[in-house]
Structures are given as C-alpha cells and as structure tokens.
C-alpha cells in the first residue's frame, strides 16, 4: 500500500517516470516517513535499525529486476540525511531507479541529503537512474546534497544516469568510485540550472584494477544567473582507461567552472579529459528557424537535445 497525496504523486512522476505503482521491489519515502514498500523473492529492503535509512539486498544471479526508491518532500522545512546501502549480488543484472523531488511552497528550506553506497558484486551489471527535481513557489530553498559511493568488484559494470533539470536551488553532489580489475563505470550526468541556483558536481574515480574503465560525461546548461562547478578527477592506479568530458552551454549571465583532472600512477594508465563551454551557436538557431521554429522554440530544442 502506497500513501501519497497529489503533489507527491506529481513529484514521483517527475523523478521516476512512474504513473502507477511499479512492478518489482520499491521503497517510497514521503516527508521522512515510509509511504510504501514491496520486496521480491530476490530483492529485499530492510530498514536500518537506527532508522537512518535502508539496506537493499539483491541476491546473486538476479536478472531483469528493478528497484525503485523515490523520495519526496512536500512539507516546507524538512531537513534529512538518509543512508541507503545497496548490496548487489554476483552476476545479477538489475535496474535501480532513485531520485528526489522537493515541493517547497513555504518559507523554510527543505533539504534531502541522500548517501548511497553501492557494493557491486563480481560480474554484476547495474543500471542506476537518479533524477532530482524541485517545484513550489515558496521562499524556502530546495536543497539536495547527494553523496554516491560505488565499490565495484571484478568484471562488474555500472551505468549511472544522473539528471537534475529543474527547480533545485542548491546542490553539492559528490560521487566516489573504486574499481577493481575489469570493472566498467559509465556516468552520464545531465544538469540544468536557472534563476540564481548553484550546483557543484564532483567525481573521484579510482581505477585500481587492470582493465578497469571509466567514462564520466557531463552535459550542462547554466541559464539566468546560475552557477555551476564541475570537478571530475580520474585516477589510474593500474593498466586502465579513463575518459572524462564536460560539455556546457552557457546562457544569460550564467557562470561555469569546469575542472576535469587526471592522475596516472601506472605507466599503462590511459586517461583523457575534455571540457568545452560555449553559448548556443547562431547557425544552430538559424537552421531550426528555417524549419519554422521561433528563436525561443529553437533554443528549447537545442537544449533538450543537448541534455538528452
């Protein structure tokens, strides 16, 4: 049984594309309370004894199952820190959908700091999708400071899609990953800031085992007077390959600081970084306008495509 009001349902739709109760395992958290939970034969969700969060345990060999763990805040003034630990069994293949939506119509700040730790077993394959969204016209800020730690065993792979497109006033996200031999990490981050928002995104990826690979790609758009800092570091401690890329569109009076960095501690570490910041190209706007779009519609299409 899931108990959600209309605002909470709308937030869930935004962050998890969920229009109804998902099949498979789930844990819904609304205004710091458990709003619904389902477990399956292979996926168990257990509240931590101290009430600080949940453990999600996925049995070895679990295939084609999903876990949804959305969090919504619709009361002004809530400030919470939640620890979620994921134990993903060997050779499993699962999708994990997380995300947080805050609707703050009040005068006090609302803040959710989710600390997610992933322990990815040998040969396991995980797709992780995380969306952050804010709404509400109160003066209180909507703040999200997620920390993601990923510990990857041999030959495991993890694909992370992190998206924050709208309404979060302040975010400081930190992602740390430790990869053993043959592990593969792909991160796709999409970020858009507007108004006077401030977003910081930092990555520290340590390629510790032979044949480990990481690809960390961030695309972002800074509009109005918003500010962004992207700070991605890949460290190669073994024969490995790593790539990080930050590609940004800057608009209005936005400000972007991109600091991709690489550290090689092994002669066979192959590491590449790229960063580009620029405004929307005039010829892109003109091309779409020749198809009948107004300048504003053209801009939206370009941004939507860029953040896809």
């Amino acid at each position, binding site marked *: 049984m899931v108990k959600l009001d209309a605002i909470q349902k709308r937030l869930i739709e935004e962050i998890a594309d969920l229009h109804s109760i998902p099949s498979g395992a789930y844990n819904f958290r609304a205004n710091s309370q458990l709003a619904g939970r389902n477990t399956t034969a292979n996926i168990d969700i257990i509240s931590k004894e101290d009430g600080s969060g949940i453990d999600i345990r996925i049995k070895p060999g679990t295939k084609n199952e999903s876990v949804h763990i959305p969090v919504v805040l619709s009361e002004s003034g809530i400030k919470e820190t939640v620890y979620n630990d994921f134990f993903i069994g060997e050779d499993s293949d699962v999708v994990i959908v997380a995300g947080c939506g805050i609707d703050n119509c009040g005068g006090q700040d609302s803040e959710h700091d989710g600390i997610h730790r992933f322990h990815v077993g040998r040969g396991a394959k995980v797709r992780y999708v995380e969306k952050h969204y804010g709404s509400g016209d109160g003066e209180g800020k909507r703040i999200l400071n997620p920390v993601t730690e990923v510990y990857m065993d041999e030959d495991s792979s993890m694909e992370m899609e992190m998206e924050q497109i709208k309404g979060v006033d302040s975010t400081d996200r930190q992602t740390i990953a430790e990869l053993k031999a043959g592990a593969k990490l792909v991160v796709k981050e999409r970020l858009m800031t507007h108004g006077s928002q401030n977003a910081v995104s930092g990555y520290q990826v340590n390629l510790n085992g032979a044949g480990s690979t990481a690809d960390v790609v961030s695309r972002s758009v800074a509009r109005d007077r918003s500010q962004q800092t992207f700070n991605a570091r890949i460290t190669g401690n073994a024969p490995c390959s790593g790539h990080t890329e930050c590609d940004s569109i800057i608009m209005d009076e936005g400000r972007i600081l991109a600091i991709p960095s690489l550290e090689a501690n092994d002669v066979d570490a192959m590491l590449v970084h790229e960063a580009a910041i620029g405004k929307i190209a005039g010829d892109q706007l003109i091309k779409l*306008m*020749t198809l009948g779009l107004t*300048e504003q519609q053209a801009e939206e299409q370009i941004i939507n495509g860029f953040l896809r």
Partner: protein
Amino acid sequence: MLEIKNLSFAVEEDGVRKEILHDLNLTIEDGRFVVITGPNGSGKSTLARLIMGIEKPTSGQILFDGQDVTALDIPSRAKLGISFAFQQPVRFKGIRVKDLLRLAAGKNLSVSQACDYLSEVGLCARDYIDREINSSLSGGELKRIEIATLLARHTRLSVFDEPEAGIDLWSFQNLIRIFEKMRREIQDSSIVIISHQERILDIADEILVLTAGLITGHGRPDEILPALMQQSGGIQAGQGFCEKLQNDDAGTARPIRWKASPAVGVADVQ
C-alpha cells in the same frame, strides 16, 4: 512565385562600405528549376540567404506569391513556404536525425515516414534515423540529411546553397539523381540551387549567372552553357571567366572552375 525587386546588399568592412549585390531584379515562376552560378564572391550565397531572411537587404524588395516578405523574419518566411539548405549543414549535439526530420515536417512523423525521406537521399534509413547530427557524420552524410529535411518540408520554394560542396564523388552521383527526381516532380513548387556543377546546370530550366553582385546572364541552359564553356575553352585565353574541368575519368562531377571575375559583365552570353 518569387520576385526580387531592386535588391541591394552592402556590408561595412573596416569602415569601408562594400556592396555585395547591386540592384538585382529577378522573377522565379512556379514550377521552375533555377540554378544560380558564378565565381566565388559574386554574391550567390548572399542572395540565397536574403531570400530566406537570414540576411536583411540594404534596399529593395522580396515578394513571395505576391506578398512582400522583405521585413519578415526567418520563421515567418519558413511558414509561408520557403526552405533553405545550408552549404555547410549545422551539427547538433543530442539532436537525432529523426528529431530534425520531425521538426522539418512540423508533425510527428512515424519512423517509416522519416525513413522514406532518408531513403530518397540514398541513406540506409535504419542506420541513420537514431544517429545524432554531430561530428560522427561525414560531410556527405550531413549534406544528404540536410536535403532530406527539405524534402520533409514540402515547401513551395526550396533554396539549396551549393549542395555539392564538400561531398565525395559517390555522394555526388546520388545528389544528381535526387535533383533530377526533384526536377521531374516539381509541379507548382520551385527550386533554386546555387551550384558550380555542369551536371546540375544541365538540368536547369533557367541558369542565372551572377558576377560581382550583378546578374550577368539569365536564360535556358542551351543559351547560357555554350558561351560559358566556349569561353572556358581557351579561345580567349586569359580573358575567359570560367573553365570546364574535365575529369570524366574520375567520375561525372564536372565543376565549372571559375577564374577571376571578368572586368565587364557577360550579359552578352544571353
């Protein structure tokens, strides 16, 4: 029908006024396939951009189907039925081929409809429909996708700015086939192509020669081409303004290689 009346375009460069187009007058009737040719820098692309509204004229008028569109912006002209293919197609990160075709069509095309447009331009549709229009596509591929977007628009007037620029010979063969097909199916719409290619000039209803911002020739291919080719044959060595590049061994692309603009107009080629 497109009417251009007393159209001039000038730019300021380092404080010096430079006139690119001088007092052009031109009418393109419905159902016509018109190729505009001329040396580099003669103002061909500028004229094409003026028709689409990408540039604004210094003076003069542009009428489309009797309506004065001179003051209209690009989207307004697009909606009236003018479309434009860029000489160097624009790349977009994240926008896929099918997205662009849908935007061009102005409606939600099915995958098979989108594929039809790609097949028309000789692309194996399934391989391209989900590709991003980014630097992973070659110049020839981009060019054909650009043409496909015009096909998807079905407009009354299509303007192509040097469609042959930057494509390989194999793509060129296909390009000619596409234009021959468009020529056959033109009905009441009209097509304007900026080109140096004899193969494209050959299939035109009308050829317009633009030299140093002036119309210096305008007529049917049989009226215009022989004079251009004859002059290029070295009869007036040093004075001819174009030459034909014979590269039949390599394929069928035959660009007219323009020499420096003639000091005087070539209106007499008519």
